[in-house]
């Protein structure tokens, strides 16, 4: 390990000075015990207090019983990356209490259920608060059928009392969490109140941690990336959604379903969007490709195993040039892997998805705002480029609640790309003497298409995955084949410029650059501040699409050293850069993690300091 002192943004030990709005806690419970409501209420309340906050659910692939953790971080400085360590643990699960207590830094706080406390390891350098859960529940007026689920409300009351969260605000977010239903909300609140009062009357606070109201979340929203992407699709005019359930993508389509009402025809009450649960991902891909061929905007959402099944269809759509949008909410592979853990391990496979020479367009969102924007923009790009567009998100963005600015309404009209109706086709033939589906008259690699139903005797063409000429006629001629591939390359270049460009933070005085993408963003923002305090100044580029924009190579050339930071095992973005410009990679270092968890700043800082010899 390199020798470094952790600065304040991630303490290795806790001082006795008051610590306000700058600490994290981890809630250890068991899966399916109802703790999600407790955790959501805490996050929502801190957000309502104006304190920058994040919540990350680290859950098992299981419906009930296995250990689950939820980490909540409050940061007065606005850092929203996961923290590698937390100063506080809520230890409500006997199965993991040993590791949970061991993970606390000296000076940390353990809030523990009384029955779990009996088997917990003893430490004299931490503060322990014991919660008499059974006694409290005996006093509570909760029907026995609900008792187990409501138990977790006790730690909400304890946390509120110990760290100064106003109870009335807890109450408000609880009601919100129950969709405005007062009755179940109040049953839960009564338990929170009991625990709160018990601690107030019987327990002396001896730790330094406290929350205080701020105004840093004003106007912001709390939302998951999957909800954001779904709304983007709804506002992007998607017509046909076909899908097959898979964690962590399911909530994206669930959200589309719950907002279908926004796409009702006001006169007839009928829908302008179809959502079909297919029999598998093969069929889901087929449906969106059929819909794209027939002129509709279509999409699916899946994760790695589904992407694998879609690969033959992805190649067909690439080669037959059919618009459609495919979301990959990445989870950890290979194979079933860690199905409930996050990863950035699908970008290489997806970028080249399909046999033969395919290179797919991919968008890489980093935040809910971007998930929303790419949600509608991907549908535009698919029709403009007449190609599948992959949106590669991940479990961390997709399923966790993120603070976000409210989304901006699309700043351009819907782009339907080059589609000729009967009249336009007539004009096209008058102007050019002929029309061919894959004939590149504009020199951008993108032909003009017609859609079925176009009432013109020349409108029809035959869509196929087999070799074809620019008139869409079957051909096995080598020259024709190569011409077509060259044209598709031209289209790739068109896409390179049309896709979202990288976000660059560059200052010519700095010689070290970081390149990354997606949900590593919060960790990298925090790591750069931290590194600067350690005397390592960095520039940064966040790539937002594949194929890589030309500015990526420019950025590499402008630096003495480049670190490519990514959350997969093999350094996949680094490999893609190597494919594009191997001769410029001598000073590029690949930093890869891929441990199933959202990236923490500490790992980025450690890794870079180590390479910088500090």
């Amino acid at each position, binding site marked *: 390990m390199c020798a470094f002192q952790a600065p304040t943004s991630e303490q290795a030990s806790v001082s006795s000075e008051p610590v306000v709005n700058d600490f994290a806690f981890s809630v250890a419970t068991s899966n399916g015990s109802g703790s999600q409501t407790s955790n959501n209420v805490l996050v929502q309340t801190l957000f309502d207090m104006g304190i920058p906050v994040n919540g990350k659910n680290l859950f098992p692939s299981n419906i009930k019983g296995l250990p689950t953790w939820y980490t909540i971080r409050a940061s007065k400085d606005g850092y929203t990356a996961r923290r590698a360590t937390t100063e506080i643990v809520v230890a409500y699960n006997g199965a993991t209490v040993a590791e949970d207590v061991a993970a606390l830094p000296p000076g940390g706080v353990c809030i523990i259920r009384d029955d779990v406390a009996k088997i917990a390891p003893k430490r004299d350098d931490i503060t322990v608060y014991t919660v008499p859960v059974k006694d409290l529940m005996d006093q509570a007026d909760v029907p026995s059928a609900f008792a187990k689920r409501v138990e977790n409300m006790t730690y909400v009351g304890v946390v509120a009392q110990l760290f100064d969260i106003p109870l009335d605000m807890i109450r408000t977010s609880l009601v919100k969490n129950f969709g405005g239903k007062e009755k179940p909300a109040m049953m839960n609140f009564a338990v929170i109140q009991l625990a709160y009062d018990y601690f107030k009357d019987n327990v002396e606070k001896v730790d330094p941690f406290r929350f205080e109201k701020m105004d840093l979340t004003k106007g*912001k*929203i*709390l939302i998951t990336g999957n*909800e954001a992407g779904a*709304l983007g699709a709804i*506002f*992007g*005019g998607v*017509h*046909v959604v*076909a899908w097959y359930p898979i964690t962590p993508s399911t909530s994206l389509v669930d959200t589309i379903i719950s*907002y279908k009402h*926004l*796409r009702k*025809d006001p006169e*007839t009450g*009928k*829908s*302008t*969007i*179809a*959502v*079909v649960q*297919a*029999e*598998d991902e*093969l*069929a*889901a*891909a*087929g*449906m969106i*490709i*059929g*819909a*794209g*061929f*027939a*002129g*509709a905007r*279509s999409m699916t959402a899946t994760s790695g195993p589904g992407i694998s099944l879609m690969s*033959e*269809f992805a190649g067909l759509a690439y080669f037959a040039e059919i618009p459609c949008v495919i979301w990959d909410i990445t989870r950890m592979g290979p194979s079933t892997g860690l199905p409930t853990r996050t990863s950035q391990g699908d970008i290489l496979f997806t970028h080249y998805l399909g046999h033969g020479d395919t290179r797919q367009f991919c968008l890489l969102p980093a935040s809910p705002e971007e998930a929303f924007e790419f949600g509608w923009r991907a549908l535009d790009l698919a029709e403009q480029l007449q190609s599948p567009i992959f949106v590669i998100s991940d479990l961390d963005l997709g399923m966790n609640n993120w603070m976000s600015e*409210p*989304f901006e*309404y699309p700043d351009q009209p*819907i782009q339907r790309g080059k589609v000729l109706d009967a009249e336009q086709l007539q004009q096209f033939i008058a102007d050019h003497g002929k029309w061919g589906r894959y004939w590149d008259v504009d020199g951008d690699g993108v032909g003009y298409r*017609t*859609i*079925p*139903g*176009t*009432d013109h005797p020349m*409108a*029809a*063409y*035959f*869509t196929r*995955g*087999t070799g074809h000429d620019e008139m869409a006629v079957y051909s096995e001629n080598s020259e024709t084949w190569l011409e077509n591939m060259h044209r598709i390359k031209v289209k790739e270049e068109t896409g390179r410029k049309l896709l979202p460009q990288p976000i660059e933070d560059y200052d010519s005085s700095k010689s070290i650059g970081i390149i990354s993408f997606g949900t590593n963003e919060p960790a990298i923002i925090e790591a750069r501040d931290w590194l600067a305090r350690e005397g390592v100044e960095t520039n940064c580029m966040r790539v937002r699409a594949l194929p890589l924009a030309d500015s990526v190579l420019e950025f590499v050339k402008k630096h003495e050293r480049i670190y490519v930071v990514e959350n997969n095992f093999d350094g996949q973005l680094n490999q893609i850069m190597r494919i594009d410009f191997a001769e410029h990679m001598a000073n590029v270092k690949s930093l890869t993690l891929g441990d199933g968890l959202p990236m923490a700043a500490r790992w980025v800082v450690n890794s870079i300091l180590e390479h910088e010899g500090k």
Partner: protein
Amino acid sequence: MAKENTLGLSRNDYKGRKSTLCPGCGHDSISNQIISTAYDLGLEQHKVIKMSGIGCSSKTPAYFLGRSHGFNALHGRMPSVATGALLANRELKAVAVSGDGDTGSIGMGQFKHVIRRNVPFVYIIENNGVYGLTKGQFSATADEGQELKYYGRNDLPAIDLALEAIISGATFVARSFSGDAKQVQSLLQAAIAHKGTAILDIISPCVTFNNNDSSTKSYSYGKEHEIPLHEIQVLAPDYVEGKEEITIGDYAEGEIIEVDMHDGTIVRLKKLDRDHDPRNRMQAISVLEEAQREQLFLTGLIYYEEPRPTVQENENLIEAPLATISEAAMRPSAEKLAEVMASFR
């Protein structure tokens, strides 16, 4: 001057590109029946899409209805592509072609699910008992015990795709023989009128790999053994309206079964040697069981039922094609977005 149909088009206008199949292939005669039927009905080709999977059979959409858009998709996955296209535009009529390999093996899942969803289209299986395009392997519809020169004996029982269709909830199931042009045309016409998935399992000899006299999928076998269940007459709606005098009075009781299709088409089935009422599901299943047991080549409309709601109806879609609705109907307003955003505060 060439003859013209109601649209002023000649039969030639319904042709596609020149076939590249083996001369004499059963699939080519089915293409011809599609051309004739579309011509006779005066089908508007721009409202038709031709869908297929992969195989010799699946190549044929290139050889008919040259003025219709077509899609030669992936092996076994035509049904999903057709489903998507018909969701995008519910005004389109789809005529789809598959093979016994394309449907009975790799595509069995999609075959059953497209039926279950009741996607309204004509699904033709050009059934030759072999994989033609990959040079003559046994398919899942080959007879148990059949011998082929290169691949030897087939030890596995045959899958009856008509039976599979009924069990999956199909509301229109027919079997025919590519050598019986008249019956194929009648069944096609009825299938086109059907408001649901219409399955046509058409025995279509592969002259190159499976046309020995001993094979039940050969021309000679079909010619000698075909037993039509009925004589079929399909009366188009305009025809029915204009000619009230057509009555069933000319036939004795029980000799005629009439099936009314939703668009006004009437399918009239005249009894031949056997009693078969295609509206009776148990009878349909047992007639197929019997045919398999006794090695009988029974053809005709095997099963018919009032169709369930279609996939578009179940999705409660607007009547107009989704593909061409206005931007206003596709993108909710900025005020709506603001409302949604407020709910996430």
